[in-house]
Every structure is written in structure tokens, then in C-alpha cells.
């Protein structure tokens, strides 16, 4: 890769989330906790999901997490937090879907800023197969935890 590629990968937004992750830390209210590992590199995340099922549709009340990993995996957990907390589970799953499509698109998918907000900064990561797993680690953990919490009925 070239220096240019490098800048495409490490967008400012990513580095900002890395330095100041949103929502980091494990909090007490949760229905499901999962631990995911990237076996290739050993990156790890412990992630808890707290759903609020009081209303008509269940809502993602909190996602709390503790993660060890590179800037990409840390920043993507932070962006995940921003994007899904407060949304209905269905909306959140749709965002998850969109993010997955972006990451698996090998750089050919145009991200929708209205849906993915800061997540569009990961468009550059999609060009680096070795790093896609980093970006997806916490997202896969969240989906798994949400399913365990009964959120995907």
C-alpha cells in the first residue's frame, strides 16, 4: 500500500474515535454479554447489550464494551455505540446490515452518510481485507449479544 492508501485507511474521524472512544466501559444493566476474538490477531471485545422492551418495539438502551485492539477495531466499537444506542432494535439491525455491506464491498460500495454518519469513515478500511475483521469485531459481537438478549426474535 502507499502513503495515500494509508490516509484513506486512517481517516481523521477514525483516529478521533480511537483517541476518545464513545460509550467505552462495561456497565451493569444488560441482558446479554458476549466475548468475541479475532483468532488471527487476538483482538478481543467483551460486549453487553441492554434492551428496553417496555414500549411497543424494543429499543437498544445501551451497548457497553471493553475492547482490546487496534485503532480500527476500537474506533468501530465507538461508532457502533453512537449509531445504535437509542434506536429501535429493528433500525439498529438495519444499520448493522448497511455497515456490513460497506465493509464487505471491497471498496466498491458508496456509504450513505445519513445512515452511517461517522461510519462512512470506514469506507477506506473495506479495501484492506486484513483489516475488515478488525472493523467488524464489535459489530458481530453486538449482533450476537442482541440475538441472545432476544432482540432479533
Amino acid at each position: 500500500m502507499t502513503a495515500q492508501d494509508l490516509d484513506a485507511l486512517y481517516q481523521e474521524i477514525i483516529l478521533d474515535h480511537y483517541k476518545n472512544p464513545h460509550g467505552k466501559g462495561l456497565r451493569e444493566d444488560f441482558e446479554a454479554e458476549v466475548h468475541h476474538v479475532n483468532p488471527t490477531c487476538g483482538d478481543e471485545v467483551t460486549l453487553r447489550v441492554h434492551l428496553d422492551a417496555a414500549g411497543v418495539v424494543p429499543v437498544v438502551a445501551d451497548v457497553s464494551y471493553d475492547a482490546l485492539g487496534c485503532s480500527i477495531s476500537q474506533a468501530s466499537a465507538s461508532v457502533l455505540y453512537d449509531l445504535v444506542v437509542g434506536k429501535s432494535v429493528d433500525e439498529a439491525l438495519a444499520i448493522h446490515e448497511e455497515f456490513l455491506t460497506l465493509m464487505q464491498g471491497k471498496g466498491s460500495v458508496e456509504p450513505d452518510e445519513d445512515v452511517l454518519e461517522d461510519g462512512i469513515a470506514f469506507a477506506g478500511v473495506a479495501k484492506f481485507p486484513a483489516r475488515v475483521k478488525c472493523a467488524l469485531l464489535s459489530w458481530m459481537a453486538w449482533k450476537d449479544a442482541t440475538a441472545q438478549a432476544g432482540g432479533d426474535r
Partner: protein
Amino acid sequence: MATSSASPVLSGLLPELEVVRKDFPILERMLAGGRPLVYLDSANTSQKPQVVIDAMVDHLERHNANIARAMHQLGAESTVAFEDARDKVAAFIGAPERDEVIFTKNASEALNLAAHTLAWPGDRQVGPGDEVVITEMEHHSNIVPWQLLTQRTGATLRWFGITDDGQLDLSTIDDLVNERTKVVALTWVSNMLGTINPIAEITRRAHQVGALVVVDASQAAPQLPIDLTAMPAEERPDLIAFTGHKVVGPTGIGVLWGSRAVLDQLPPFLGGGEMIETVRMEGSTYAPIPHKFEAGTPPIVEAIGLGAAVEYLGHLGMDAVHAHEQAITAYALEGLATVPGLTILGPTDAAQRGGAIAFEVDGVHPHDIAQVLDSRGVAVRAGHHCAKPAHARFGVQSSTRMSSYLYTTPAEIDALVEGLEYTRSYFKLG
């Protein structure tokens, strides 16, 4: 970048290093962005000299046939080439007998061969109450097979710890290696910490209690001269494993050396063609070593490539290769010490370690370091290097590892150090 013009002259480097480098076609490779390749990932896999590639091509284009079983000219040529490769490997490690050299697919298979055969009835069978001793600095390939063996047989797995300065903690040796110990399995040179372990001393102790000693020489064989015949019997391990692709040979080939006495005691591992004496539906008898452990068509062209590889190393001289590695490692340790916030994991005296150097840089994750270095053509490894327990011991989850080899120049180390400085500035670490 990596040209001799810029290199400082270190004593101990291989003579005519630039000529040696010409033997390795990949070193001329230009990467994206027009950067020359600076390959510092040789503990992961080594690059291949032209003579190894040519030996394989010549075999495939002119002599390809199955071995042993074939009764025609190509078959005879192929068999001779394959068995010559065994002779070369035997010479490379000073094996007491050439038939003690077993070809496997990699070091992992060789270690599993040992662990699996110990599970089944035989003079050395491991069972409940028995103990198997490994160390905390093993590669996963020398941990998981012993976990599986002990779980499956009801034996107990124990291990040596690591001291703060990255050495094996031998203070507990008399407790750990006792009359219940059936096997002691350990690495000669750590692929993460670089530590060179006192194999002779540990083997002597293990042999006193009648335990079998299995040594993972995957990182030792590329770097240290090995002469098994010269070792006193009580200090000579019983089984030694290494892998072809780290000694400038191809993938798909590994070696298990074992003393005839021990190999004869072990039951067969993989069953099939070539490893039999006779087969009836009701039961079979087995061929003597080495064939007993080489079921099916072996990695023929790979063995031939490995033969050419160890011959190449022999021509350079393993003493010279080792001196080169030490000179480069010393230079690298010095250079890395100038990078702010960089901590080396493992011994910091080049004379007492192998050429793999794992380190951390405050404030940057190893993946990010490796990525930035890659953008400058510098190839290192980031992650746990298949040594999670050793990382856990030092409270780190992953590290960056540079590893040199006989073709590494001081200028390449300079490129790494510059790259690390650039990485720090890229991530805005003062």
C-alpha cells in the same frame, strides 16, 4: 533503502551479503508506491533462494514420479532425489542415523505426531497420573497437542513459567520434572521472546527421571548450528521438530528427528501406503523407520526443495549464518532502543537470543504499527505470533515483531527504525 552503500559495516555480517541477497529473487520486488521490499518477517516464514526454486522446477519438469513404489527410470530418479534430501537433512542436524529423519508436512505435524502416538498403547503411553511438562513460552503448535494429549488420556499438563527478563523460570525444575513426568516438550528458541533455552540442562534433568524430551527447533534450526551426534547422549533430546519454510525451504515439508530407540517404541501415527510391511484385512504390520511414520505419498518435491535449502545453508555455513543473525540482532536492539516509548519483550542481550524481536510502542497498537510500516515497504508481524500465553504472561495482548535472517542488511534495520519514528508521528505521539 536497503542497499549496501548506506549500510554501516558491522562485524559478523555474512561476507558478500549483497551477493547472497541476489540469490533471493523476491528481494528485488518493488511494492506499491515504488518502495523496495524490506522483509523483516523471517521468523514467520523465510524467503527462498533461486537454487531451491530451481531444484523443485527441475524435479517437476524432468523427474516427477512417485517414489519407492515405481520401478521405472523416473521412479528411480525421484526416489534417489527424495532419499538424498533425507541424507542432506540428516547431515544438516548431525543426525546419528539418516533413517531417524522423518518427513512431515510442517513442524506442527511433527509435534502432533509425537503427542498423538503417546496416547496409544506402547512402551511410552501416557495415562492418568502421568505428567507432561511444557513451558509458557511455547508456540501454540507445542501447546495444543499436549493439551489434547493430556485431556484425552487423563494425564496432567504442567509448565515452566517465564521470568520477568524473558527466561524460563527453572527454579521449580525439580518439582516440575519428577518421577511422574513422562514428557518434557519445549522450544529451543522462542519465536516471540527470542530466548534461547538451556536444552542440554533440561534434557539431562528429564532423562534422569526417565522422561522423553521433545524439542521444538522451529526457530533454532534456521539460526543455530545443530549437531545431534556431538551432544552427550544424556543431553540429547529424544525428538526434535522443525519446519522447512523457515530454513529457506518450501512450505509443505517439516522434519521430525527421533532417536531410533524412541521411534521404534512409538506406535504408528498415520496409517496407509508406504508405512506398512504387510496388510491383510484382519490386521497389518508396519515398516521400519523412517517409512513407518510416512504414510501415503510424501511431500516429494518439497523434500527435494528442503534438501537444496539445507545444502544452501551448509554452503554459507551455519556458524556464519548465526554470526550474521547475532550482528543484525545487536544492531536492531540498539536501533529500537532509540525509539521513544518502545519496550522490548524478552532478553536484550543479542548473544543470548534469537533473531525475533517483539516489542510494544506506547500509544500505538501493533496492527497500526504494522500497517504504517507496510506503507513504507517494511514487512513485520503484528499480533500474538501464535504465542498467546507468553503474551498473557507479560500482560500484553499483542505485539509487533521484527525478525531478520541471513539476507537482512543493517540498512533494512534503519528503515524499520525510521518507519517506527514515522509511525509515532503519524499517530501524533509527540
